[in-house]
C-alpha cells in the first residue's frame, strides 16, 4: 500500500493499490470470523485473488475481554496472484484492548488502525494488562494512522427504534466495522446485504439492524473527517471460469467423495474428533447421498482399525486426525502395511508435542508419519501444498492406495485446513477415473487363491469377502509371499521386509517428476513441502525478480520421492530447506541424497513470513 498524502480535499481521494492485507480481531464473541469471511466473499465475487487465515483461541469460552479470548481473521486480496494471507497487516481492526495488544505487532509501520474506542474502558484495559489507555498515550500508537471510532455507541444509535435489546444491538458491531472497511476499500456490499437478508429472514428486525449497522459503518467512513482517502484494488487476471471459496478441510472432503465416485464405489470414513481435523468428519457426514459412510469411532485406535476392516471389505477407506491421534494409530497403520490393504490416513498437523498448540500450525509430524511404527514399515506419504490442492491430493492418495495396495499418509496442517483460497471448479468429465479391481477368479494353479501373489509392481490382489472360492485369511504375523500363510523363516522375513519396501519404491514410476519454479540451475534451490508452499513461492518469486539466482522446489510426494529429485538437487550449488519444525525433511533428504542442505526453522505455531524467507535467501547468497 502506498503512503498517503494528507489530502485536504473535500472530495475523498480514491487511490489504487495492488494488494492489501486486513486483519479483523476482537473477542471470540465479537463475530470477527464472520466479518472476515464476508469481506473475503465480497472480494472474491469482485474478482480479486484472495487468501485467508483464521486464528482461533485454544479455549472455547475464554473470559470476555481477556488476552486468551482474542480471535482473529486475516485475509489478503489482490489484483495479482497471491499465495499467502500476507506477512504484515495493512489495516488492523481491533474491537477491544486485548485484541489490540495481541495483534498490534503485526501491523506495519504507517498502517491503518481502526479501534472501537468504546471498548477501551477501565475493566477491559485491565483484562488486557494495559496500565494506561494506549489510545490516550500519544507515543504508543504514533507509528500508525489511528482511527478511534465509537463503534458501540454508533451501532446502538443506528439500530434505535427496532426494539432490540442492548445485547442484540451490540452484536451488530462487527457489521458496523465491516461497513467501515467496505468503504475504506471501495467494496460493493451487495453480496453481504443479500446474505444478511437471507440469514435473518426469520428475524426481520435483526436483519434490518445489521443492514443499518452496515450502512452506518459505510457512512461513517464517507462523512467523517477521520478518513481522508480510500483505496481501490482492481480485479486479478485469474483464468476465466467459475470459482468457489475452499478451505483445506472442505477440499479434502470434496476430494474424497469425488474419488469414491470416480472409483464407482463407497467411501468409508472413520474418525475421532480432534482440532484441526474434525471438519473433515463434519463435511463428509453431510455427503451420505454420495455413498459416503462416516463412523465416529470411540477413539483413534478404533478409527484406524474400523477403516482397516472396511478396506478388507472393499471400501475406499479413510481416517483423519492430528498429532496425538496419529500417535495412537501407529500400531493399526502397521497392520495395514503388513496386510497390504489400501487406505488413507490424513494428518492435519498442529503444534506439538503432546497437546501442544492445538489451534496453531506446524510441520512437526513428518517423522511421526514417515517412521512412527514398529518394524521397517514403509508406506506412501504425500503432502498437500494449499487449501485447493487438498482436493487433488485426496484423490491422488486414494488412487495410489488402491492401485498399489498400500496405506497412504496425506499430510496437511492447521494453516491449510482452515485457510481458504479460490478453487477453480473443475469439469466433472475432466476428472480421471480411479480403477478398482476385486478379483473373482482363483489366481493359483488348481483352484486356489493366493492373496500375496504379486504383479510386476509387486502389488497383491484385492479379493473381498463375499467372493466365492477366494476365501483367505490376512493377519499381522509375518507371512509367506504368495500364500500369505504364517511363516517365521528368517530368509522369508528378509524377503518380505525388502519386498514391502521395494513395492513402495516402485511407486516412483507412477507419480510425476519433480518440477522447479525458476531457473533450472543456479546458486540456490529452496526446497519446501506442505503448507509453506505459498510463502516460499512468493519469497523465491520476489528474489528472482530482484535478480537473484534462486529456484523453488516444492515436494508433494515424500515417500517415495519423485524419481528425478537427486538430479534436480545436483543443478544448484546450495540447498535451503525452510520448515516449521526442527528440520525433519532436511534430515531425510540429507540421509537419502547426501546433500549438504541447510535449514531455516521456525517453531512458533505460525506460518513463515515472506520477508523472513527473503532475508534468509539473501543470507544464503551472500
Amino acid at each position, binding site marked *: 500500500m502506498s503512503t498517503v498524502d494528507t489530502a485536504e480535499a473535500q472530495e475523498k481521494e480514491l487511490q489504487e493499490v495492488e494488494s492489501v492485507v486486513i486483519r479483523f480481531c476482537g473477542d471470540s464473541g465479537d463475530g470477527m470470523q464472520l466479518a472476515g469471511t464476508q469481506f473475503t466473499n465480497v472480494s472474491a465475487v469482485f474478482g480479486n485473488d484472495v487468501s485467508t487465515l483464521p486464528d482461533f483461541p485454544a479455549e472455547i469460552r475464554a473470559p470476555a475481554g481477556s488476552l486468551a479470548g482474542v480471535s482473529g481473521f486475516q485475509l489478503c486480496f489482490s489484483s495479482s496472484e497471491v499465495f499467502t494471507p500476507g506477512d504484515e497487516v495493512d489495516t488492523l481492526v481491533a474491537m477491544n484492548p486485548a485484541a489490540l495488544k495481541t495483534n498490534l505487532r503485526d501491523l506495519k509501520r504507517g498502517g491503518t488502525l481502526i479501534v472501537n474506542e468504546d471498548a477501551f474502558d477501565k475493566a477491559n484495559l485491565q483484562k488486557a494488562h494495559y496500565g494506561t489507555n494506549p489510545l490516550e498515550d500519544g507515543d504508543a500508537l504514533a507509528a500508525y494512522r489511528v482511527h478511534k471510532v465509537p463503534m458501540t455507541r454508533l451501532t446502538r444509535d443506528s439500530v434505535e427504534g427496532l426494539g432490540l435489546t442492548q445485547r442484540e444491538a451490540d452484536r451488530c458491531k462487527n457489521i458496523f466495522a465491516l461497513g467501515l472497511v467496505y468503504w475504506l476499500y471501495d467494496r460493493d456490499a451487495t453480496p453481504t446485504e443479500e446474505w444478511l437478508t437471507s440469514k435473518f429472514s426469520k428475524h426481520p428486525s435483526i436483519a434490518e439492524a445489521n443492514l443499518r449497522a452496515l450502512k452506518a459503518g459505510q457512512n461513517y467512513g464517507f462523512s467523517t473527517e477521520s478518513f481522508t482517502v480510500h483505496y481501490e484494488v482492481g480485479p486479478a487476471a485469474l483464468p476465466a471460469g467459475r470459482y468457489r471459496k475452499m478451505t483445506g478441510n472442505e477440499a479434502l472432503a470434496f476430494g474424497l467423495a469425488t474419488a469414491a465416485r470416480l472409483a464407482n464405489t463407497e467411501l468409508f470414513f472413520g474418525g475421532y474428533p480432534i482440532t484441526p481435523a474434525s471438519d473433515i468428519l463434519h463435511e463428509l457426514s453431510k455427503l451420505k447421498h454420495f455413498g459416503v459412510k462416516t463412523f465416529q469411532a470411540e477413539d483413534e485406535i478404533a478409527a484406524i482399525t474400523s477403516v482397516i476392516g472396511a478396506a478388507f471389505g*472393499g471400501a475406499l477407506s479413510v481416517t483423519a486426525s492430528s498429532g496425538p491421534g496419529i500417535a495412537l494409530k501407529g500400531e493399526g497403520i502397521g497392520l495395514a502395511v503388513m496386510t497390504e490393504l489400501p487406505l488413507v490416513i490424513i494428518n492435519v498437523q498442529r503444534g506439538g508435542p503432546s497437546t501442544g498448540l492445538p489451534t496453531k500450525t506446524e510441520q512437526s509430524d513428518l517423522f511421526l508419519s514417515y517412521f512412527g511404527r514398529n518394524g521397517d514399515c514403509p508406506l506412501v506419504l504425500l503432502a498437500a501444498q494449499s487449501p485447493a490442492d487438498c482436493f487433488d491430493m485426496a484423490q491422488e492418495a486414494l488412487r495410489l492406495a488402491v492401485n498399489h495396495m498400500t496405506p497412504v499418509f496425506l499430510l496437511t496442517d492447521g494453516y491449510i485446513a482452515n485457510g481458504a483460497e479460490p478453487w477453480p471448479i473443475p469439469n466433472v468429465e475432466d476428472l480421471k477415473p480411479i480403477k478398482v479391481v476385486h478379483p473373482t477368479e482363483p489366481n493359483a494353479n488348481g483352484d486356489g487363491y493366493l492373496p500375496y501373489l504379486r504383479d510386476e509392481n509387486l502389488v497383491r490382489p484385492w479379493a473381498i469377502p463375499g467372493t466365492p472360492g477366494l476365501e483367505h485369511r*490376512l493377519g499381522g504375523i509375518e507371512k509367506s509371499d504368495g500364500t500369505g500363510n504364517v511363516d517365521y523363516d528368517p530368509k522369508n522375513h528378509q524377503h518380505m521386509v525388502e519386498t514391502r519396501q521395494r513395492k513402495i519404491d516402485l511407486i516412483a514410476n507412477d507419480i510425476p517428476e519433480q518440477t522447479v519454479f525458476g531457473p533450472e540451475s543456479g546458486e540456490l534451490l529452496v526446497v519446501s513441502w506442505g503448507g509453506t508452499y505459498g510463502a516460499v513461492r512468493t519469497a523465491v518469486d520476489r528474489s528472482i525478480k530482484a535478480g537473484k539466482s534462486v529456484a523453488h522446489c516444492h515436494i508433494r510426494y515424500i515417500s517415495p520421492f519423485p524419481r528425478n529429485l537427486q538430479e534436480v538437487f545436483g543443478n544448484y550449488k546450495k540447498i535451503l530447506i525452510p520448515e516449521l519444525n526442527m528440520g525433519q525433511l532436511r534430515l531425510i533428504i540429507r540421509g537419502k541424497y547426501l546433500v549438504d542442505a541447510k535449514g531455516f526453522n521456525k517453531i512458533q505455531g505460525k506460518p513463515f513470513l515472506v520477508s523472513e524467507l527473503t532475508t534468509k535467501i539473501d543470507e544464503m547468497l551472500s
Partner: protein
Amino acid sequence: MLIDLVRTLITKKRTAAIMSMTDVELPVLTAKDFASDQEIRWCPRCGDYSILAQMKKVLPTLGIPRENIVFVSGIGCSSRFPYYMNTYGFHSIHGRAPAIATGLKVARPELQVWVITGDGDALSIGGNHFMHAIRRNVDLKIILFNNQIYGLTKGQYSPTSPLGKRTKSSPLGSVDYPLSPLSVAIGSEATFVARSVDVDIKHLTMVLERAAAHKGTAFVEVYQDCNVFNSGAFEFASKKDEKVENCIYLENGKPLIFGANRDKGIRLNGKGELEVVGLDEVKEDDLLFHDETSKEPAHAFKLARMRWPEMPEPMGVFRDIKKPTYDAAVQQQMEDATAKNGGGDLEALFNSGDTWEVK
C-alpha cells in the same frame, strides 16, 4: 448417473448373495468344508480345539454361503482361530477386533461377521472397543474365550483371574479384583448375552446357534480350559457329575432349577437378593422364572452376578432382546439421504457454497 451404477452394483451384489442363499443349488457343506489347510498349533488338550470343532459344525447349518462369513480376531492363543477356518478371516492386533469388525460390517452389512477374542484381548487392552461395539448393537457375534489367564504370553493373570491367583506376574497372589465379562456386556446394553463351556458340546452348539440367529451384537462367553497355564479352572462347570450341581442351565420361561435330582431352585428373597432354596420347602411357582426377553437388563444382570462356589452359575442365554442394529441404521440413513437429495451430483456439490464467475 454414476450413483445409479453404484446402486446397481450394490443391488447386484446383494441379489447374488440372496440367490446363492435360496434358489441356486446351494452345495451342502459339512464341517470339513470349513477347515483350512493350516496346521493347528494350540497345545494338546487346549479348550480351543473343542470350540473350533463346534463352530465348524454349526456354520454349515446356518444356510449362509461360506464366502459371506468372516472371522475377525485380536491377539492371543484364541485369536489364532481364523487361520483354522476356511472362511474369510482377519487375525489383527491386540484388542481391536471389535473395531475392525465394526468397520467391515458397516461397509458390508450383508456379511456375517464373527469376532473371536480372549479375556485379555477383550477386557484389558480392548475394553473400550468391546464396550462400544456392544452399545452400538453392531450385528456381530463376539465369542470370548475366557481361560482366566494370558495364554499366549505364557501365563500372567488376566482381568478375569480370581483374586489371589498365583501366576508368573503375581507370585504372591493377584490383588486385582476380577470383572465379569457378562456384567460388562449387560452394562453396555448388550442385546444378546450367553455363556457356555468349551467341552459341553451340545450346550455350546446350542448357544452358538442362538448367537448366530440373533440380529445385533451377540456376546458369548465360553469358559475355556488353558491346559498349560490354568488347567482345571472350570472343572466345576465341565466335570460330568459335578456340573449339574454347580450350574443352572437356563431355559426361557422356566423356573431356575438345578441339581442332579432337580431338587434345588433360585428364589428372589424379600431383600431383593437371589438365594438357593430346596424344592421340598418352596413351590416351583415361587422360584425366579427366567425371561431372556426382559426389557430391563436387571434380570440378566442379577443372573450374571451368580458366581460359583457361592451360587450355582447360570449357563445358556441370559438375554436376547430385539433392537435395531447400528449397521442397519447407518444403511438406512444412506438410503434416506439418497432418496431425499438424489444420488449425489458432483457438479451441484462443486457449485454449492460461495462461488463466483471470473470473466
